[in-house]
């Protein structure tokens, strides 16, 4: 059984990890939109900032932001609740792993593509 100090340390770690995931997730939203555009433009983009490809880019940007923001809010609030309920269990740590992997994967993809 962990003593109080260890418990507090772990609580602090969870809060820090959750906060970090919230910040990184926020950064990942525009990066994900850019990633979608970086895939869209080589297929349909044009040299000019008008016409169907430009409108397509605008549509993607506006269309993606709302669901991504919704996902973000759901993920962060839901994540907080999940970590509270499953504090210091493998399920909680696994959830952190998945969260950071998805956020890191999106940032990496956006940086490379």
């Amino acid at each position: 059984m962990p003593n109080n100090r260890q418990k507090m340390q772990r609580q602090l770690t969870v809060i820090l990890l959750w906060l970090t995931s919230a910040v990184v997730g926020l950064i990942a939203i525009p990066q994900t939109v850019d990633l979608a555009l970086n895939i869209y433009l080589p297929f349909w983009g044009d040299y000019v900032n008008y016409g169907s490809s430009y409108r397509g880019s605008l549509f993607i940007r506006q269309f993606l932001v709302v669901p991504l923001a919704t996902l973000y809010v759901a993920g962060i609030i839901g994540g907080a609740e999940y970590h509270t309920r499953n504090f210091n269990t493998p399920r909680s740590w696994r959830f952190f792993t998945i969260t950071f992997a998805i956020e890191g994967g999106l940032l990496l993809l956006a940086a490379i593509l």
Partner: protein
Amino acid sequence: MKSSLTALGPYLVQGAQIIVGMFLAVAILIFSIHAVMGLGYPYPLDYGEAPLVDQAMRLAGGENIYQADLSTPPYTIANYPPLYVLAMTPFIKLCGPSFLPGRAIAVFSTLATALFLGLIIHTHTKNRQAAWLSGILFLTFRYVVGWSALARVDMLGLACSSAALYVVSRYHADRRGLWLTALLLLAAIYTRQTYGLAAPLASFVWLWATEGWKKALTLAALVGGAGLFLLLALNGLTQGGFILNIITANVNTFESATLWRYAQELATRAPLLLAGGLLLLCVPRRVSAWPLVAPYLIGSLISAATVGKIGSNVNYLVELSAALSLVTGALVAWSAAGATRGRWWQAPLHAVLLILVSMQAGGLLQQTLEHPVTELKWRVKAEKNQRELYQLVSEHPGPVLADEYMGFLTLQDRPLYIQPFEMTQLANAGRWDQSALLADIHAGKFPLIMIHHFPHAEVYKTRWTPEMLEAIQHDYTLTHSRADTLVYQPRSAVINRLPAEGRCPSAPWRLPTRSDRGMWWFSRGLGFMATGEPGTVPVYAVAEGWLTRRSYWNDTVAIQHIDPLHPGEKIWTVYQGMSDRQDEESFISSSFPPGSVDVPVEAGELLGYQGRWQAQNIWAYLFFVITPAREDGSFPAALVDLANETDTPLPRELEDQGWLDPAPYLKLLHSQVMGQNVWLPWQCQTEE
């Protein structure tokens, strides 16, 4: 530290697996969009598509595609063994000529190859994630994505050879497995001859390592014996045409610079995969699939080295892409095995390896987006121009010579008259006498000749001999330019419209230069483009006048004239672009040094030479403008810097300056839509 890493290890691996999965999902997305775009495009995407569809049409009609006699038309070469064409023939016979069946075969073959690569890794390692990784990593290579949507032989051959590797891996102890392996290897070789090295070598070594030398030699005897028998039989049936077409006609000149270029590209774009290959070769006893994967890698590297042949393309690298994907899968599985039952550092190391593979896949995807995806996009965006070319071809019955777009003939159920690249290479090697074709060109036998000019690369010079180009130049004239393709028609059809002795009939002025590659009307002036190297095509004064060259004009002179259409008024002609844009060397005559003012010149006096056109980079070019003088007769200085071929919009305050249409002065064809960039043929106005 050790205990922390031991505890964190599984989480790190799981996270890395998710990241790999995300990269692979993006790879599937990009591959799928590209494949759908390629499948849906009705016109040719590559030079090599039309000959294969043409061969399928001829096979459907019961004709021999491997001609032994190349002295009479059609001057066509079937570069490859017949399996792919045979696979396409029933569809062509049923649905008529189209690129769709051939491209669909290629797409499905690519997916089948990815599947077999995964199955090979799974068979050897029982690691599903490594199997998925190996298969999908194959779809990230630009060579694979680019070639997967083309009606070309390569992907079917690769699917057969990877299927053979799977069968020999899975059923190596079974006699039927041996026969099936031999059959699949034979199918691969009879789809594309270069598949006769890597996969057969890998199968042979693997069988030797697992079942002993007798079984390995049996496989070699089966493949070698049946292959040789088929070769001799087909060569006999075609009276020597088979070997002439698939071997003799394929021995092109080798350029080590091309090989070096691709080697550098691989080293910079796939360094981790190459390092993985090197590592795998060094650990023969640690990786269970080593006796299969290592010889396959070595064989595919040797095979890829033939990319240095003139006319070769990235299809020579798809087999190497498959080998590198197998190597990666084998190494990841090896690393994963260590991570689950090894020391404290092995799980974090495996996670790092997965992240590195993800980044490598990302780098390859970036290259795929830059090259095949973007190239396909521009092809598709030029569909309107291609439709116009297609229409033009349909309006001209009879034999048409074409290169990149010879597929328009095929789509119209018309046979190819010539495959210019193949015949040019044979002519260069002294194995084909082109004199009959040259005589036909001189006689104006072809209603159209279409020569494609890739921007920034003189590919057409590998597709047409200098003699053919000279004959076309001599007896044909350029009438259309669409989709980077110049369309020539017999000179006799438009002889009364061609400028003679540097002047159009009844024109007040002579012409400033030659422009046999047509003119671009850039709304404020004319771009003249000529055959010949920059710095060799002379530029002359259109009329007598007084020349000015400001001290900072490297490529421009301007001449003041009395306006022949409005006597008493003064106008200026501007000759811009007379320099090599690469090294800024000026091509202006030394008689007119910088700082020249009011130097008298005569009509027809040499001013300099055409420069390099930036848009094509390899064409000679002159930009010619006529502008009214200021009230005092002087030159409007601001204009020189504004007048260029990118057609920068004129600032509103200078619009009143007025740009004069050169057509009334030169009597050349004029733009029907002023202010719109348009290509015009090098022809005079007809007398009303």
